[in-house]
């Protein structure tokens, strides 16, 4: 009798948990230095961030949001970057093959905050919005770093012009 009840709890408990993680969000560890100084300001302490899946269910991102996305180069890897430009914007690139790029429809331009130490759109070009996995909302661990992640863009990285 108790065996049957355990089986039943597992059979329903696991899908409920997975669905929660899929639709609401989850906590993940940030690796690497590409988002310094917003995340991982000291390389030895890694930050844990809450990634909200709910916030990107309509692929609705704003300039300055920190998002996690599937790497276009390796589908098994997830990367965390800041959205710099949305579709229709013209960005001045940092070392991409064209100096100015107009972001195509359904794409966005992502960059790490740590210019020069990050693998981002300046290497692989604009990324499709469909690759966006979640939006980073706040740092949850360690407690000394407890804070919300702001939607902000450095002035020198603002897009040159918006959609016409």
């Amino acid at each position: 009798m108790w065996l049957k009840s355990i089986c039943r709890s597992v059979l329903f408990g696991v899908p409920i948990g997975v669905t929660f993680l899929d639709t609401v969000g989850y906590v993940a560890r940030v690796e690497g230095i590409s988002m310094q100084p917003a995340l991982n300001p000291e390389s030895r302490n890694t930050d844990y961030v809450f990634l909200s899946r709910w916030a990107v269910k309509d692929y609705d991102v704003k300039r300055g949001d920190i998002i996690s996305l599937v790497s276009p180069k390796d589908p098994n890897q997830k990367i965390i970057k800041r959205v710099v430009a949305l579709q229709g914007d013209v960005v001045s690139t940092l070392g991409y093959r064209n100096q100015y790029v107009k972001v195509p429809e359904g794409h966005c331009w992502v960059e790490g905050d740590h210019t020069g130490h990050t693998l981002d759109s300046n290497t692989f070009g604009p990324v499709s919005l469909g690759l966006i996995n979640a939006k980073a909302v706040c740092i949850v661990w360690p407690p000394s770093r407890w804070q919300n992640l702001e939607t902000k863009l450095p002035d020198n990285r603002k897009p040159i012009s918006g959609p016409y």
Partner: protein
Amino acid sequence: MPFLRILGKTCGFVGYVIQYACVTHCTFEYLGDFVMCSGPSMEPTLESNNILFTEHVTPRMQRLRRGDIVIAKSPSNPKQNICKRIVGLPGDKVRGHFPKRSQIVPRGHVWLEGDNSSNSADSRVYGPVPQGLIRSRVVCRVWPLDKITSLTEY
């Protein structure tokens, strides 16, 4: 206390609905689901309003092969899905429309083309597609009933 009894029954019912909704979500998200395709791009293999059974295991394990028909999110509009055949894997040499020269499919991307090559917006127009956009692989057609066929090549 009829009020409490009704409240208890309602809670129990809502709980059942949530349980089964979660099981359904996981099945459709991780195992397989049904997709209705529209548009002429995959004729004559698939026609408009065919219903296909697709599985999500192969794309998740990166076991896709040339010739598989896949459902992917459209690169230019993530809310729309496209149904195409994989023509090239990373490292393959393919020929596009624009720029009209052969190119090599980059790492982490695939080259998708529709079977109806004269009437299909595919990789020849928008270039290689990241593998992260691929959602599922088509296994068989289940509707219309007289055209039930397996659509895998092995």
